[in-house]
């Protein structure tokens, strides 16, 4: 692999290195990038186009540059656009550690991989070697911030089948599911590891749902969006990150997760680690079916609660300019005007009433939590910091909006 040129992308503050490499070199690491990232988009190229591209490759055609990205901090070591050797070193290290993301050219990669498999199966060694030795170009973004990476992914995908912001974020923040930080582990659905009943492990997808809700100010999980919406969301992330005073909090995703964790920790502390006890439920709070959750964490680590939390904090930021950090600093004021057992049982009863009357249970519960957190955390609200008042307010809002009967 040879670095041929380095340019600086001032829009997203990153270097862009144009490299030449053989298909053998490329497939050597690209296969791992695909296999190791189950959020990378699936193969969508249609068979006819794949067929044509395959034939062209066998005839030695040049394919358009594949665009890759590395988000390693060491990129700051690159002195200037002439510093090919540092760039090469960083690229090679990233390849060795599988720390690359394909931001444009995934479908071409699938075709290359498929052709390699076909040739191996046929045992056509001569053609295989010719194929391996063909050169291709790749542009590698060095030192992209997450938002820069997202921006490039969006803009490079323009005109193609769009990805939802939610899906882009899955790719973007995937590394958080690989490495624990601040003692927190994010667990992917496919892993055998269980999401424990503590504030150290979280479901990766659920947190992403919540983060997406924060960015979109919308509690619903699946949003089909167009490119402009994606770019708008990106601007929100960027502005929010700039607003965070603490350097540690500059990563908005991480900041969102820590804010949610802080909320859970406060609730656990204040409620003495409340747990549902079926024998200690007053008649007015008895539920007809199994309750929504049986502990503080069981309730508030569910997707419905986290998306409601995200949407409410997004709303609060929009209306009153409060950052996540500022919201978090107020958590210690959270209390309830009733005892904690009654407070949680009231929330569970409300959630059951929603379940019994709803035509869309998941969405209505998310709606409930959005208003719950708005009431609880919006500066100056009548329910500010009062859990049970916030629950009453949220149920009234959902019943009114969704037309529930008394």
């Amino acid at each position, binding site marked *: 692999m040879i670095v041929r040129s380095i340019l600086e992308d001032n829009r997203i503050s990153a270097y862009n290195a144009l490299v030449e490499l053989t298909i053998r070199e490329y497939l050597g690491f690209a296969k791992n990038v695909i296999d190791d990232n189950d959020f990378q*988009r*699936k*193969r*969508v190229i*249609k*068979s*006819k186009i794949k067929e044509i591209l395959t034939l062209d490759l066998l005839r030695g055609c040049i394919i358009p540059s594949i665009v890759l990205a590395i988000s390693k901090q060491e990129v700051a070591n690159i002195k200037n656009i002439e510093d090919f050797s540092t760039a090469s070193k960083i690229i090679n290290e990233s390849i060795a550690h599988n720390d690359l993301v394909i931001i444009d050219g995934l479908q071409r990669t*699938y075709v290359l991989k498929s052709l390699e498999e076909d040739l191996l199966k046929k045992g056509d060694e001569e053609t295989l070697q010719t194929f391996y030795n063909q050169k291709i170009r790749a542009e590698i973004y060095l030192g992209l911030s997450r938002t820069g990476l997202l921006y490039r992914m969006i803009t490079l995908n323009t005109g193609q*089948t*769009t*990805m*939802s912001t939610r*899906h882009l974020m899955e790719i973007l923040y995937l590394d958080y599911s690989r490495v624990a930080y601040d003692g927190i582990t994010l667990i992917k659905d496919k892993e055998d590891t269980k999401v424990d009943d503590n504030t150290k492990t979280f479901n990766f997808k659920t947190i992403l749902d919540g983060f997406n809700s924060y960015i979109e100010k919308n509690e619903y999980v*699946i949003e089909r969006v167009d490119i402009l919406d994606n770019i708008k969301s990106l601007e929100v992330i960027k502005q929010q990150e700039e607003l965070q005073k603490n350097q540690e909090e500059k990563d908005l995703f991480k900041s969102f997760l820590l804010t949610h964790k802080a909320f859970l920790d406060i609730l656990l502390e204040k409620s003495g680690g409340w747990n549902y006890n079926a024998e200690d439920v007053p008649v007015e709070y008895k539920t*007809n*079916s*199994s309750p*929504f959750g049986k502990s503080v964490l069981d309730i508030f680590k*569910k*997707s*419905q609660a986290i998306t409601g939390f995200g949407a409410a904090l997004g709303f609060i930021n929009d209306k009153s300019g409060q950052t996540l950090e500022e919201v978090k600093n107020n958590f210690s004021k959270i209390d309830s005007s009733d005892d904690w057992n009654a407070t949680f049982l009231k929330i569970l009863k409300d959630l059951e009433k929603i*379940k*019994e*009357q*709803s*035509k*869309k*249970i*998941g969405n209505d519960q998310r709606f409930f939590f959005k208003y719950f957190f708005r009431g609880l955390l919006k500066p100056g609200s009548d329910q500010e910091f009062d859990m049970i008042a916030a629950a009453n307010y949220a149920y009234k809002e959902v019943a009114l909006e969704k037309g529930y009967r008394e």
Partner: protein
Amino acid sequence: MLVLRDAIDKSEHNFTLSNVSGADKKEFTLISATSPGADIRFTLDPPAQALPPGYTVSVYLFKNPFHTQSQVIDLRTDDRVNGNGKIGYMFSLEALFTPGALQLDNHRYCYSHFGIEFLFGNSATLQTKVVELTGNIYSIMDFFDNDTIMLVLCNEFCNQVVSFDINNYLSNLFLHGFTYFSNNSPIETVNDDAYLRNKYESFTVPVIQSGIYPLRLAKAKIAICSEAYVIHLFKNLIQKNSDQVTRFLMLYQVVEIFMPKMIHLEVQQRVCNDLANLTTDKLKELVIGLTKHGELITALLNRHAVPSNQLSRLLLQEILDFFIHVNHPEFQDPLRNANQTLTDLFYAFRNKIVHEYRILHAVGVDAQITEAKISKINHLTEALVAETITVFVG
């Protein structure tokens, strides 16, 4: 099977069920031979349970404006003698994939599991939305309409009913708010009249702890419910938006189908069975009466397929209100109006909109209100038609 369409050349890719895995929750994987690598996965939310061997299911789609997602409908019919008439269950499709929405015991879990297997494994797709192949993560509701209710029938139970056909029960299901639909017959309109709501709530209120609500369907009246037009009406027409006058005439066709049956029944029951007691004049009167459409409607609604008092009153009042609204000269006398029967008014309404269509557009009459009134009459007529088919004693 699910079908995804290529965004560029519009070619279709069939995705069929290849694997069901997972211990706690079952993940269904669908793959396509023409789009390798683009697997689709869905996870059924209710915790997995053991599946009994030897059972197969059929699946049909419905919508019901009164149904809430947590309600599971336990469908039974008087046509099946065994098993207390049980033939299947109805589930909100979305609820089956929504965390915590449904808590199913082993019995109901099996229906939901087999139902989903049918949706994904059947050789013809049941999906009701066109979906583009994007490689993104799909939700079940990307493929099916909002509020889709999946009816899962146990084939082995249904086979215990002679010549079982779900089409024979569509009118009865409609009467409880369930409108059949499919990808060929999409839902364009639903009947959300309070009368149907009451019918639905008659078996779903109050809330039952288990969330399972038994709906018992009366024996299918084969003589009418298996009529080709009746099936066509409930499978393909009633879901569609149509001009309100046309809609009424479309519904009235069922009454027309009833008419020859009324002649047979009336002759059998009122003439043949009672011949010894009939004078010649009475006999002549009866037979002449059978040549009159109005008399036959009376026979239908008063003797052979009697609708509930509530429905009769509601429809009677709506038709009367309509005639008063359009200033029809025959219906301006309150005393005379008070003596009108449903038969009189229903037949009169049919005749007026056919022979005096112009009254709908009379000067000085608000056409929008006129249309709204006919729409209301149509909603109640849909209920009337469904109810007469259901209660017909032939």
